[in-house]
């Protein structure tokens, strides 16, 4: 249900859209009460397994950070008020609001206008205590016409509430890769909020393999017309794991583009994936184009994949808008075809899953990250389809 209220007597029609799909964004914690689990945006998340993490008790614990910053990247630290003053996308849920409120300031990485990074900025974040609660806020600001690749990799054990902001200047190019390689006992609830400048191009890749409960909310809005966003994701959910990706693309500017392609595989009892993709096309957003796709491959019995694409369209003057969602088992015809050429069943399954993910992985554009991720997917597959070296009879 969508309600649009046009504000009268404003030359350029400003509108506010109220919808259960995208709660009001706000830095004020009071706007984000502790969820009961009945809220639309919380109904899939296993709140009980968060063990009071959303109470927001203060914590001084930190993750271990190491960054490999190429020339042209400047790191600084800001207090919370100064961070918010950068016109960050506001938190959309309690975890991200807590992350901003309790982190005690933000780390800011700046890429100057017109800079072109030769090397990716690689940040490794790791935790070593599954009972420690950590709040973290990090901001990446890409100056106008700059070009950068950023890899943010999470490993280890922690209870982590995070807020990541991507401020992408006019005409800038950003390739952002987020890897959730957490240990099996980690809980990570995070928000990646992006603001995309005029004619800027942003590509994000999210890969979530580890963790006990991982819930990432990605939101995007545009600062001017002509911005392009591509979001790719992959997840591999094992027994007992909950991995949730929620996307919200706000087409608040004309002639903007967005494309979302998330793919997941599930295996083992109570493996649970959630993908919710919301796209809002505001009245002003004429000439936009958007497509969202989510595909799930269910490898064993006992898994659950929730997949919910939503489109809210306030104008028909657009180039295109669509979405698709598929969840299924192995395609028997694909397996038959491969096996009819002598490829054993294990190997055929491995090829199909590999093929399913490789389209996403090759978008990363950082060779060693691609290789590591392929290796990680291979390792996951060993669990379900046996030894991948079983080519010989």
């Amino acid at each position, binding site marked *: 249900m969508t309600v649009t209220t046009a504000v009268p007597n404003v030359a350029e029609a400003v509108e506010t859209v109220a919808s259960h799909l995208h709660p009001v964004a706000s830095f004020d914690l009071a706007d984000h009460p502790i969820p009961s689990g009945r809220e639309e945006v919380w109904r899939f998340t296993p709140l009980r397994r968060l063990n009071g993490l959303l109470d927001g008790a203060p914590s001084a614990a930190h993750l271990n950070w190491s960054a490999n910053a190429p020339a042209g990247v400047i790191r600084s630290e800001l207090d919370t008020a100064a961070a918010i003053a950068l016109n960050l996308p506001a938190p959309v849920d309690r975890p991200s609001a807590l992350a901003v409120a309790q982190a005690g300031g933000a780390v800011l990485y700046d890429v100057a206008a017109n800079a072109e990074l030769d090397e990716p900025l690689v940040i490794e974040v790791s935790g070593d205590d599954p009972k420690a609660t950590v709040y973290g806020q990090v901001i990446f600001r890409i100056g106008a016409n700059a070009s950068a690749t950023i890899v943010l990799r999470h490993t280890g054990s922690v209870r982590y509430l995070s807020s990541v902001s991507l401020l992408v200047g006019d005409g800038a190019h950003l390739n952002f890769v987020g890897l959730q390689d957490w240990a099996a006992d980690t809980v990570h609830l995070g928000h990646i909020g992006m603001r995309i400048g005029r004619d800027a191009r942003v590509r994000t890749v999210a890969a979530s393999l580890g963790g006990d409960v991982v819930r990432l909310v990605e939101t995007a809005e545009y600062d001017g017309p002509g911005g392009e966003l591509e979001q790719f994701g992959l997840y591999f959910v094992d027994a007992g794991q909950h991995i949730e990706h929620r996307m919200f693309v706000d087409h608040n500017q004309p002639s903007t583009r967005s494309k979302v392609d998330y793919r997941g595989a599930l295996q083992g009892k109570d493996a649970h994936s959630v993908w919710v993709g919301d796209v809002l096309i505001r009245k002003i957003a004429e000439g936009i184009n958007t497509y969202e796709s989510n595909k799930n491959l269910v490898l064993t019995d006992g898994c659950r994949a929730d997949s919910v694409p939503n489109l809210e369209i306030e104008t028909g003057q657009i180039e295109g808008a669509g979405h698709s969602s598929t969840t299924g088992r192995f*395609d*028997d*015809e*694909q397996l*038959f*075809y*491969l*096996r*009819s*050429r*002598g*490829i*054993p*069943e294990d*190997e*055929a399954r491995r*090829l*199909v899953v*590999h*093929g*399913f*993910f*490789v*389209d996403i992985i090759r978008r990363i554009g950082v060779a060693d990250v691609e290789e590591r991720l392929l290796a990680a997917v291979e390792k996951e597959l060993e669990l379900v389809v046996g030894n991948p070296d079983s*080519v*010989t*009879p």
Partner: protein
Amino acid sequence: MSELVISNLHVEVETESGPKEILKGVNLTVASGEVHAIMGPNGSGKSTLAYSIAGHPKYTITSGSVKLDGVELSTLSVDQRAKAGLFLAMQYPIEVPGVSVANFLRTAKTALSGEAPKVRTWVKDVNAALEKVGLDGTFAARSLNEGFSGGEKKRNEIAQLELLAPKFAILDETDSGLDIDALRIVSEGVNRFTAPGDRGVLLITHYTRILNYIKPDFVHVFVDGRIVEEGGAELADQLEIDGYDKFVKAAKVDA
């Protein structure tokens, strides 16, 4: 000298209203060095014959046997049948996104021969096989059959036939949907395959057109799940003139 022997083959398929018998006692022997054409009207069970020999899970062999050099195929898995020397060129080759033609071919060759092909010669062999069927080198890097035209898919099947070099090939309506140039290229590929004289071909087709390029040693008319007439290449010429009507009517009378 190899032999593919199909004896009294009965095959069912599961339908909404229960199992339905499609093949009703097929008898056929294909010796290496021979090309057998199976011709019949739509819905006669020609493709069912192809798929059930290859082991498609949709079809159940209820009685009879299929033996390749004395080895019973019907108890083998799909990939074991391929290892025994069987190849099925499909009417609608399946798209497998993200699996490159090169990777697929190398994996198949490795599985069939039990060892990985030599990298240097293999790449040359793959490119040569693709080139022979008119597919340029870029196809090796593309996802298997994904976005290929109908003709390109058929050419790719024939390239596989050449590279994987089975003992027996079943070609399921490989000619359907091909323009005249593609038909000629595909036929030449099949003729190269049979040239050594020690391979057998079961060519399933609806039309006589492909038989202008591939000369069959035997022609079998297939109606209502069984072979109703057999002869040499001249039988195909007669079908071209008279069509299948006579055989369809006769089968109805028998039934």
